């Protein structure tokens, strides 16, 4: 169409486009709150969901686990000490290591010498030791090899006894102690994380919200606390307090909240001069309401993420303290003290270390994956 034709279009063909008020301002997308969006993102994250299920499973086991058999966590009996794991369903599956036998390979000049070593190792109960010659040997030193399997449950006349995860050096059931230890570790971790949360959020929030001199003094106090090495404070606290769950929690919380308080302070400093807070002030809203309705909802995501990351940190620190002998005292168990005991018997009875080590690793990894998932969930850019 050329220019001349354009002029020939009759005027009455032009009709003004009338915008209707109700359709022009319509929003068609479904209305979702921030937390609904976050939930959707979190539940579409498969590793995070799987980790949450794992954590839930471990928590449930730590509650019901000790009741699943009849042993108590402090029932000592040296006659049944260091029994290997034995689970009814897996008795015929030798590679799983849960058939209630001890096994080992022994070397000697010839088969006879190697077998003698095996018998000496396994209480000299020949009739319960199955020998399997791997290498006949040629008479030189350690050339012969014999694999010995010791049916210890039969040898001790405990055919009807099952220690699912074995028993420890004092004859206590590892299964019961493992789940009780997990429970203790989780309680310490959650309580410590909760204290971090409460102290950290209020300290950081007050410091940032009131600002000025209040902020200055509060931050100097926190800096002094941070300046002293964490471990020194905790070790001294453990010496002063009676060892136990409460003192570990206190020792962990005495410095643990500082990280949280710094994050909260930074966020509140950022938010408190935002225009929606100023608008709220011009409306005459009180400080308490501003904190409750404007500040806390806007930093809740970061608080939740940080708490999720402080839980595995606390689990690890408790295990570390117990491992070096400053944490939970026997006969109580925690994951750290179980690992400590297992570590002592690592060469001959590895199962004592393996199970608590697996539980603590799974817990730490799962909490970190869930924490990562939450961080993505609370990031508006990740919402689809």
């Amino acid at each position: 169409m050329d220019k001349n034709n354009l002029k020939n279009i009759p005027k009455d063909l032009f009709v003004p486009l009338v915008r209707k008020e109700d359709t022009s301002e319509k929003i068609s997308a479904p209305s979702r709150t921030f937390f609904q969006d976050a939930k959707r993102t979190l539940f579409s994250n498969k590793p995070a969901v799987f980790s949450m299920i794992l954590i839930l499973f471990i928590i449930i086991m730590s509650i019901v686990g000790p009741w699943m058999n009849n042993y108590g966590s402090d029932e000592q009996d040296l006659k049944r000490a260091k029994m290997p794991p034995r689970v009814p369903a897996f008795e015929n599956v030798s590679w799983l290591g849960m058939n209630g036998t001890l096994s080992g390979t022994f070397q000697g000049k010839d088969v006879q010498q190697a077998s003698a070593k095996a018998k000496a190792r396994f209480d000299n109960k020949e009739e319960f030791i199955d020998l399997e010659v791997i290498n006949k040997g040629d008479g030189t030193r350690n050339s012969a090899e014999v694999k010995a399997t010791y049916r210890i449950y039969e040898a001790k006349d405990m055919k009807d006894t099952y220690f699912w995860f074995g028993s420890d050096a004092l004859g206590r059931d590892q299964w019961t102690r493992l789940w009780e230890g997990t429970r203790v570790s989780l309680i310490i971790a959650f309580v410590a994380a909760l204290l971090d949360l409460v102290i950290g959020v209020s300290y950081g929030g007050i410091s940032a919200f009131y600002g000025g001199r209040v902020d200055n003094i509060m931050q100097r106090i926190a800096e002094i606390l941070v300046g002293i090495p964490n471990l020194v404070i905790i070790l001294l606290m453990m010496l002063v307090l009676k060892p136990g769950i409460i003192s570990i929690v206190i020792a962990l919380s005495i410095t643990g909240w500082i990280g949280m308080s710094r994050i909260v302070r930074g966020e509140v400093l950022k938010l408190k001069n935002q225009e929606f807070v100023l608008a709220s002030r011009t409306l005459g809203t009180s400080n308490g309401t501003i904190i409750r309705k404007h500040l806390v909802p806007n930093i809740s995501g970061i608080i939740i993420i940080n708490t999720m990351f402080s839980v595995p940190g606390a689990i690890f620190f408790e295990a570390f303290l117990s491992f070096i002998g400053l944490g939970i005292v026997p006969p109580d168990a925690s994951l750290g003290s179980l690992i400590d005991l297992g570590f002592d018997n690592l060469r001959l009875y590895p199962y004592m270390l393996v199970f608590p080590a697996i539980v603590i690793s799974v817990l730490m990894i799962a909490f970190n994956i869930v924490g990562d998932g939450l961080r993505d969930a609370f990031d508006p850019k990740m919402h689809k």
Partner: protein
Amino acid sequence: MTREKLLEVKNLQKHFAVGKKNTIKAVDGVSFDIFKGETFGLVGESGCGKSTTGRTIIRLYDATGGEVKFNGEDVHGRKNKSELLKFNRKMQMIFQDPSSSLNPRMTVLDIIAEGLDVHKLVKNEAERKQKVEELLESVGLNKEHATRFPHEFSGGQRQRIGIARALAVDPEFIIADEPISALDVSIQAQVVNLLKKLQKERGLTYLFIAHDLSMVKYISDRIGVMYMGNLVELAESDELYNNPIHPYTKSLLSAIPLPDPRYERARKRIAYDPTVHGTDGDFELREVVPGHFVRCTAKEFERYQNEQK
């Protein structure tokens, strides 16, 4: 003039302490009156103290010196809670950035109703909702928007939510702190026209802070020009545009582009040189022409007056 003064600002000062010794004199002795029902425009370059003036008037900052009188009552100084609340109802503010002036975690209903809740203006949930819907309609939004969250709206819509929030407590005076500078041009007109419409309907008085001179001229009855924390010129808006006296105002007006190529080719920008006033002298806001004030020394005052004859 016998118009009723709504707001009197006398020698208002706001200094910010920077370190131990330095202070920034963001607002350094500003005086002006705003009459009932008018729109007072406040213009100036970035950082000249326009926003600080607005925020100090509404008590977001505590004034370093000077006084603000609203309806003859002193705004600053010690006050008890109920007096403060009463004042908060009369004076409201519209903010610059529509994306940060609404709490992202609250629904539009809760945002607009915040003032209603604080001042206990509604008795029950149904009345609260009805009031919010009325406000939404008065700013040209749909009442279904009440359940939405701020991120679902465009900039212009958000700014209108901000206006509705300010209107919720039935204020007499609204400080609009660059309400249009974060919006694109087509939306600017929409918001300014809405402000004008609301002024007519509710008899509002505005203090309109902006740096867009053409928009300020369109909405304002009188305009004050600020430079470095001082008011340098104050006049009726037509008078200010047609007859600028202070060299800074001349410089500002010379910077306005027009969509007219012939005018643009001829337009010469005048740079402002503060040294023309000299370093000595008693700078003061003096009335050169009736209703037209200029900040100048006594010497300059004579010269300006002679030029006007």
